[in-house]
Structures are given as C-alpha cells and as structure tokens.
C-alpha cells in the first residue's frame, strides 16, 4: 500500500535502484494479434530452451502489441551492456535457438524489423521520426501484468501530482488548455466535457471509458488495453478526481477476452497498492472501477446508447441535450471518453499542457494512432503527430501498396467516414482538415484501397454495415439507409439510371440532417464522399454499364484471349457449360449464357481469360 506522493516517489526510486536488468532481455509481443500469429508457441519455446540449457543471463518477458502486425510474431532483444535493441519479425519456434545464440547481433536467418518503424524511446523524439509515441509508449514495451514496470515508466506520477498538488479545477483547466480532443471520433474538447460535469451539483457522478471499439479495421484501443492497462485506470481516476466522481465504468466489447482479462488483473493490482479504492494516497478521494461488457452492437459506441446498454436496456440512443455530462447514467452527470483519449490524460497532467501543445497542430494538438490495413505492405499501428501527411503515413510508415498496384484511395473514419483520393496525399491530417474534405477522423482506422477496388461497391459495403447495425429507432436511419443500399446495389448490378444518382444524393443529405444519433447522421458519408471524389466511377456504372475497377460482378464480361492453348480446363469447370472449343484450340465463351461466376478466370493457368 502506497500512502502518499512522497511514498510513491520513494517506492519508484527503490525499484529502479534494486531491479537489476539482466544482461539480455527478450520480449515477446503477445497481444491478441501476436497470439493469433503464433506468438505463444515462440514464448513457450523460449521458456523451454532457457530452462533446458540453463541460461542464467537472459530473462524473457511478455508484452502487449508492438504495433508491428505485418511482422507478427515479433521478438525484441535488449542488451543492457550495449543498450542495443533489435526486433526480429515473423519468428517461428524454430528460430528460437538462433535468437538465444546471436541475441542482439542478428543473423542471416532472422529478419529484423526496420528501425524507422519502431522508436520505443521517442516520446519526445518527434523531429526525426514520422512516429511519436504518447499513447502507445508503454504498449509493446512493458509487461502489462506488472504494476512495478508501469511505475518505472512514470506510472501514477500524474495521479499523485493531481490529487496532491492540484485542485479538481486545476486538472480540468490543464486538460482544457491542452485542447485534448476526443479520440473516439467526434473530436469534442475533453476538458470542456469535464468542466460541464464538474459544475453539476450532484453527490453521484460517473466516469465511463468507452472501450466498445466497433469500427471495422480499428484496433488501437485494444492494443492500449492489452498493452498498458494501468494508463487507462490512472487517467480514469484522474478524471474522477476532476469531476468529483467515485465510480468508473469501463464498457468493453465481449469480443476482446484478452483485454478483459488484462483489465481485471490490473484493477486488482491497482487496488492492492491503494490506487483504487477508498482514500487514495491517504486523501478523502475514493474511486473504484468496474467492467461492463458489451454484447455486439455497434451503435453502443455512441455515448447515449452506451449508457442505455449499461442500464441493461436495448442500446438505443436518446436525444441530446441533455448531454450525459448533465444527465447520463442513471440520470446522473456522466463523462464518456474513449480509451485513447484517456491514455493521453496522464501524460498531459505529468508533463503539462504546454508540452502537449507543442506536438501536432494548433487546432488538434497531440498524436493520433492509426490502424493501417487493407492493401498496404505494412499493416499495423502507427502513432503520428496530428498534421502528418497521408503520404508519410501510407508510403513512409506503411511502405506503400503491395504487388505494384496503384494507390487509389484511403478510407478513414470507418462506416462514418469517407474516402480520400491521391490528390490529397500531401494534406496534413487532423480533425479539421479531414472534415473539410468530407471524411472524418473517426477512431483512426485507415483502409488503403488500390486500383482493383470499386468505390461504389465500397460505399455499398459500408451501407450494408450500417444496415446491420442501425438500431431501428429513428426512421431516416432505419428506412433511409435501406433505400440507399438498394440504390447502390442497382448501380453495381447495372440497372440504375441517371435519376438513381440524383435520388441517391438527395436521400443521403436528408438522412444526414434528420437522423437521431451520430450513427445515422454519418452513415451516408461513405456515399457522399465517394460520389464527390469518384463521380466518374459512378457515371461509368450508370451510363456505360461498366465497372472500371473490374469488381462489380454484374458488369463484367469474361473473354478468352490468344494465350489460350485449348487445355479445356475452363470448359470442364464452367458450371453452366457455356465455354466451347476443340482441344488444343482457342475456346470461346457464350456471353448470353455466362453467369459471370469467374470460375474460368480463377482456374486458367495461362492468363488467357480477360475480365473487364
């Protein structure tokens, strides 16, 4: 049990002095994705060999996500003598023996992850690397199950500072001054939200952490929860102190079992040391955190729906105002922030708003974590200062597009966002610039699309998602999106007329302004932004009945070219027997009977089928 700020400082000093670092430390990334890629087998092999060969100067450690999804499973080797650190990627249990022999020296059979991708020590080193880590500083670096390791990385210094040296109002002012904007998507200024809740005179208030990360293709919150759980707990406790709440609730997806287990363990350990519970650091301030599980409803990422869900109801949104800060959970003042937002709070309190404002842009200080996925060479998590250009993120960090394909667009903001074309690649992105070009920050998912992706069908994909996830409470969202989806289907099938495009745009705008909550208000964004940026593609579908990307099945024609040697394989596989020709002679496809299933294209070994 740690009694006060002085006690904490002494404790940290003590562990720093007494904890001897081993000659070599081997760290294995074991977030959900690391485990899925086979990280656990690597860890067990390490354990086994170290024990069998009785190696005493190596210790092994589990850590969370390093963000290097493209190279999972990853293993980092740190030497305490030379201070050298190296990360090996795509490690199999067979490589373990080599690692134990060569350690940080590297070997021809091991692939090291390029240093540009990973700067573990660069919280301040924003000048020479495209990445800057505030939120992900500890993730992939410390053992998430060890409170001591969190202490050694300045853990709980911020909370001790807040409740010892600052008044609640000071804390709010600092966060407000830092202009920390909500990282969940909307970008509302966190300090203002806290100020509203603090002003309410109510004996009971709530601090909620929104960990219902539902945006497909976004997984940064999971990385933080699995890799640095104490950071979230500490920041929520600071928030509790600031607004005068004694209960915190983390609303987490049931689909994140590892994050749930990590949090339960972290809460227990924080309680044991006196950082949760009654009279924290011997003050009058008490705070507890409990977990509530989601049950697979995307709309529950919206704060009023989330609150309904915690109350055990259907997660349907309610009208705002009243805002949750005034009337939230059980009608009490409640603040809802997402995981990444909280992860910024402790560093802001520790280092001050002025430090934070030096990073990023004026309107959006700080960093943002992006999850790069889709048609990109290096899938993973990248944390960059706000204002970094898309070109830096996609081509410098993400290493460009695989298979020599052409970059077409990047989709940001998930189902509520939009697509950005190549002419905007040099735009520095933050909340405001993204909004200006018809997209949004969202939670930070970035799906990279190449020349083979049809923008109409991407818009249709997102509408399909919204349809599934619409709660059905308000008409524009429930019925309007259904109609949008139908129109997009018509366009993709080649049965639409120019009038369809006009209707599509009109209805999109109506849904945007008349829906009840954020989900409906933003659901037409993928349609509007693709119509705006890729109008020619829509026109090609409607007027010429072709799909320029060759993705819409209904608009394709398959033809056999001169490469055909007459092997008859396609004719044998064709489910409707519409391919004819003599053996060893060029075959032809009967277009009237072809159902465009693409089997011939898939089975041909000679590249003799054209798809257009």
């Amino acid at each position, binding site marked *: 049990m740690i009694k006060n700020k002085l006690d904490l400082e002494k404790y940290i000093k003590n562990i720093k002095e007494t904890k001897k670092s081993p000659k070599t430390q081997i760290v294995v990334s074991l977030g*959900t*994705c690391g485990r*899925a*890629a086979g990280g656990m087998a690597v860890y067990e092999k390490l354990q086994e060999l170290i024990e069998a060969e009785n190696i005493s100067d190596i210790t092994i450690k589990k850590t969370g996500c390093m963000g290097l*999804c*493209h190279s*999972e499973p990853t293993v980092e080797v740190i030497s305490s003598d030379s201070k050298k650190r190296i990360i090996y990627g795509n490690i199999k249990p067979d490589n373990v023996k080599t690692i134990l022999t060569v350690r940080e020296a590297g070997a021809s059979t091991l692939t090291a992850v390029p240093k540009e991708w990973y700067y573990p020590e660069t919280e301040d080193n924003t000048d020479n690397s495209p990445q800057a880590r505030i939120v992900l500083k500890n993730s992939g670096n410390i053992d998430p199950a060890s409170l001591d390791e969190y202490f050694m990385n300045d853990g709980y210094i911020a909370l001790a500072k807040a409740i010892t040296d600052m008044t609640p109002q000071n804390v709010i002012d600092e966060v407000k001054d830092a202009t920390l904007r909500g990282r969940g998507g909307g970008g509302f200024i966190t300090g203002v939200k806290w100020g509203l809740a603090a002003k309410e005179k109510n004996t009971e208030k709530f601090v909620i952490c929104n960990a219902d*990360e*539902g*945006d*497909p*293709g*976004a*997984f940064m919150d*999971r990385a933080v929860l699995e890799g640095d759980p104490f950071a979230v707990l500490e920041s929520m406790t600071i928030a509790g102190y600031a607004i005068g709440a004694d209960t915190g609730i983390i609303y987490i997806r*049931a*689909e994140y079992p590892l994050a749930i287990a990590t949090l339960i363990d972290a809460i227990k350990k924080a309680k044991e040391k006196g950082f949760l519970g009654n009279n924290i650091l011997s003050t009058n301030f008490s705070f507890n955190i409990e977990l*509530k*599980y*989601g*049950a*697979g*409803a*995307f709309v529950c990422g919206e704060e009023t729906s989330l609150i309904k*869900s*915690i*109350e*055990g*109801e*259907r*997660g*349907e949104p309610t009208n705002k105002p009243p805002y949750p800060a005034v009337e939230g959970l*059980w009608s009490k003042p409640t603040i809802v922030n997402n995981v990444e937002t909280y992860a910024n709070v402790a560093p802001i309190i520790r280092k001050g708003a002025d430090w934070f404002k030096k990073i990023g842009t004026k309107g959006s200080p700080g960093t943002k974590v992006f*999850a790069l*996925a*889709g*048609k990109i060479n290096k*899938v*993973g998590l990248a944390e960059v200062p706000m204002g970094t250009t898309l070109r830096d993120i996609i081509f410098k960090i993400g290493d460009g597009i695989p298979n020599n394909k052409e970059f077409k667009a990047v*989709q940001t903001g*998930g189902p509520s966002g939009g697509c950005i074309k190549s002419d905007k690649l040099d735009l520095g992105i933050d909340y405001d610039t993204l909004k200006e070009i018809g997209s949004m920050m969202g939670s930070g*998912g970035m*799906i990279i*699309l190449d020349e083979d*992706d049809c923008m109409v069908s*991407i818009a249709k*994909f*997102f509408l399909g*998602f919204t349809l599934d996830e619409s*709660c059905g409470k308000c008409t524009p969202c429930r019925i309007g999106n259904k109609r949008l989806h139908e129109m997009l289907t018509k366009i993709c099938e080649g049965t639409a007329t120019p009038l369809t495009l006009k209707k599509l745009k009109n209805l999109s705008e109506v849904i945007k302004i008349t829906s009840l909550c954020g989900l409906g208000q933003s659901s037409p964004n993928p349609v509007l932004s693709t119509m705006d940026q890729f109008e020619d593609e829509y026109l090609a579908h409607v007027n010429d009945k072709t799909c320029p990307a060759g993705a819409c099945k209904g608009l394709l024609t398959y033809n056999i070219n001169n490469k055909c040697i007459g092997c008859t394989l396609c004719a044998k596989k064709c489910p409707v027997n519409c391919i004819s020709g003599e053996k060893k002679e060029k075959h032809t496809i009967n277009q009237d009977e072809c159902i465009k299933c693409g089997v011939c294209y898939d089975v041909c070994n000679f590249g003799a089928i054209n798809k257009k």
Partner: protein
Amino acid sequence: MENKNRCALGSENILDKSPEKKEQLTKYLEILDIFKEEKRRKGKLIQALHKAQELYGFLPESVQLFIATSFKIHLSEVYGVISFYSYFTDKPVGKFKINVCTGTACHVKGADKILKKFSDTLNLKEGETSKDLRFSLGGLRCVGACSLAPVVLVNERVYGNVTEAMIPQIIKECE
C-alpha cells in the same frame, strides 16, 4: 410481474433438463446480488445473460423466462434485449462456430468469396446452423487481426490469410 405459467407452447424446457446448470446460474445471480430490491437491478441483466449463454450455448425461452422472473421484469423486456444485441442468440448453435470476418480489411481482401465458399461447402446460409448441430456459419465484424486478412474464426481458433483452397482443410480440422 407474474411470469409463471407463461412458458411458450411447444418449446422444450431446457432449463429443467440440466439441474446443475440451473444451479450454477442461480448461484451466479446470487453473486450478482439481483434478488435484493433495487432500482438499478436491471443494470446487471446483460451480465446475467452473458453467463446464461456461456452455460447453455444459447438462450432458449425457458432460460429467458427464468431470468425475467429473477429480475422481476417481463419476458418481453428480456427478449427485447436479446434480440437487440448480436452476441445473444435464442437458437441453438453448432459445435463448431465458423465465423468469417467481414470487417473492411477482410472485405477488400475477398472475405465475401470465403464466406460463399463455406456456404456452398457446408450447404448453410450465413447465420444458419446445420441440422446435426455440428456447424454454425456466420459473419463477424472485425476481430482486429487485420494483418492476417481475410480471417476466419472457428470457435476460438484464428485462421489467417485464408484462401478458398484452404476451406476444405479448415472444415476437416473440425472433425
């Protein structure tokens, strides 16, 4: 509210079929402290449903009724919650739950083809369960393993970079 004698006609009473599960569920409800009169009792409903589904694999009407009675709310309120959240199901599910991730990253890498191939091979539509209760086929929104896209989950096991050619093997591994 009185829920007794309202059990649906013709539906099997799965609750009474396994008394040990019923006991476990009752114990869990006691730990949740739901039998105490309290205004905020309903806040524990979703937790209770999670537990019940963990025990029974799905939420048949008899179990819903039992929970409704315990929470002193109407059956329709429980059903309303179950039908809202995609995690809950009131139909039995297969021993092997095959879920194809249809998140954006998997979509652009061809998840729809994978889903179709499973559908054709197992002769099941998305959301269906085979009659012998061996397989359930479903889509799933993003598991966050986007580097492995397209991703297929069989129960807890993750298959990454799935191609149509891998599908017979994946099904075989379920045996």
